[in-house]
């Protein structure tokens, strides 16, 4: 199945970080953004990511996104998909709420905005997916599900609120057991929905991730991707687990059982990747997860999302670099990637290079 790619035809930023007034007319395939440390390469990716995710990937607040000498920032993109191109416009003010315009009009809902653009990002902080605790892996799954299904986000936030409420009750000196039971029921219902959605997603991304890892890293070290729910994602199972662990929960002051303790297990040679894999292999694992994310989003939305790769090539040897770009090229989407050394990007075709110097962009 060949899907139409989403394509940024023009990007304009004004007052975003150190980018000043900039205009970028990217190519349809690979766009290599290069420059020295601190030049503004990641800032450019951050602007593109903001259009898709409506937040910064560095967790920055609006104030830090607006240029030091500016009072507001604008990011505008003309994006081609299947029908007519759309114009997406974000305005960030230091002191007032962000304003969104879709084709010059206020979007009817956030969901209608998200339908217009999807981005997938890799940045060095994502390495915690392979090396860190289960938490970033759960949010990796949750962010994908939120993009695919707007009701998932509201179920998850209900679950989290009920969980915080139950934990608050557990810490009290006197506990009305019946009020804990009320939350048990809610947690088991919302938790089963969350767990089943994650299990289904992992069933979709696991083979894709394993394949992408094989393509990049080679066959010597097969990767195994599995969903490891703390409790099977069925309402009765979660309810039983919560009821049975009540005394222990009470003693430790928090809820141990439920999908908030699930993990996406990543194993090589039956050992957790965290302990076994090398730095370059960690990077390859995370890239494989991102490729899988792009792939499932593409088949769900019907268009290939825009791929943003911040500082992707370092730590991968020449052979794996080349394989990575072959794989990315085969996906057919538009890619933006940053590097300090454009010669490290082993791509001969379908590339446009942009040089960034002190926030100023120039096409080679």
């Amino acid at each position, binding site marked *: 199945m060949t899907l139409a790619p989403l394509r940024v035809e023009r990007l304009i930023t004004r007052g975003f970080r150190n980018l000043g007034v900039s205009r970028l007319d990217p190519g349809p395939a690979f766009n290599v953004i290069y420059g020295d440390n601190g030049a503004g390469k990641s800032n450019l990716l951050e602007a593109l990511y903001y259009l898709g995710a409506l937040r910064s990937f560095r967790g920055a607040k609006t104030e830090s996104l607006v240029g030091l000498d500016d009072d507001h920032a604008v990011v505008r993109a003309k994006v081609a998909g299947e029908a007519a191109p759309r114009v997406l416009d974000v305005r960030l003010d230091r002191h007032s709420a962000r304003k969104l315009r879709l084709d010059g009009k206020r979007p009817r809902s956030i969901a209608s905005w998200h339908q217009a653009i999807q981005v997938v990002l890799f940045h060095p902080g994502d390495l915690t997916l392979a090396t860190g605790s289960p938490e970033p892996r759960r949010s990796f799954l949750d962010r994908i599900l939120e993009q695919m299904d707007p009701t998932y986000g*509201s179920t998850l936030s209900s679950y989290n609120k*009920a969980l915080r409420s139950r934990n608050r009750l557990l810490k009290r000196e006197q506990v009305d057991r019946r009020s804990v039971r009320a939350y048990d029921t809610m947690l088991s219902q919302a938790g089963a929905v969350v767990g089943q959605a994650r299990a289904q997603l992992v069933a979709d991304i696991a083979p894709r991730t394993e394949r992408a890892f094989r393509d990049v890293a080679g066959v010597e070290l097969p990767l195994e991707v599995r969903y490891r729910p703390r409790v099977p994602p069925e309402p009765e199972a979660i309810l039983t687990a919560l009821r049975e662990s009540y005394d222990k929960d009470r003693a430790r002051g928090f809820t141990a059982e439920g999908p908030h303790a699930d993990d996406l297990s990543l194993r090589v040679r039956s050992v957790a990747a965290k302990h076994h894999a090398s730095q370059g292999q960690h990077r390859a694992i995370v890239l494989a997860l991102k490729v899988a994310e792009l792939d499932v989003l593409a088949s769900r939305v019907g268009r290939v999302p825009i791929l943003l790769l911040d500082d992707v090539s370092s730590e991968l040897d020449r052979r794996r670099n080349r394989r990575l770009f072959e794989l990315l090229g085969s996906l057919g989407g538009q890619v933006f990637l940053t590097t300090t050394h454009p010669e490290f990007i082993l791509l001969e075709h379908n590339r446009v290079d942009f040089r960034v110097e002190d926030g100023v962009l120039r096409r080679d």
Partner: protein
Amino acid sequence: MSQGDPIAELVSLLGRLPGIGERTATRLTFHVLGSDPTYARALGESLAQIHGRVKRCTICGNYGAEETCAICRDPRREAELLCVVARVPDLVAIERSGSFRGRYHVLHGLLAPLDGVGPDDLPLHDLVARCESDGVREVVVATPLSVEGEATALYVAEVLRPKRVKVSRIASGVPHGGELEFTDQITLGRAFAGRKPL
């Protein structure tokens, strides 16, 4: 609040009402100032007396002019059927829909451990007592479909489990996280017809 400036004082007081921002508060203040002073006096007196003149029904918690409210005194209302609501505006919305012929129990709040509201802060003992003495057969819980509303509904079910009462929840015709108060009458009617056991 600036002590000396009566206009700023009224703007600030009005601005504390829900749904009223500073602009509306300013507009209302100048409107009152531009109208006949008898209106302002009547409004002020009415506001000043509201707490004294309106009582909470000692049976169900609804507002009324006497110790017990008009609904609790109405002999045509079914005493075996109780509807639990979080707030009086929810009761008003249900009354407007005409879909319920029983009586009410107003909690004046919802369980919210994160905000420090526990079971003892709500009139739940009264609810149990009513179920024991008034021959109640069924309790319909019509709290909002928010986390707090759901938790309260489930808690009511837990509390009434040992009693011989059927506990049900209004069906989810009401939009998720939605306020009953703003739900249209047809939707609310359907929600009552399709209530589910808890």
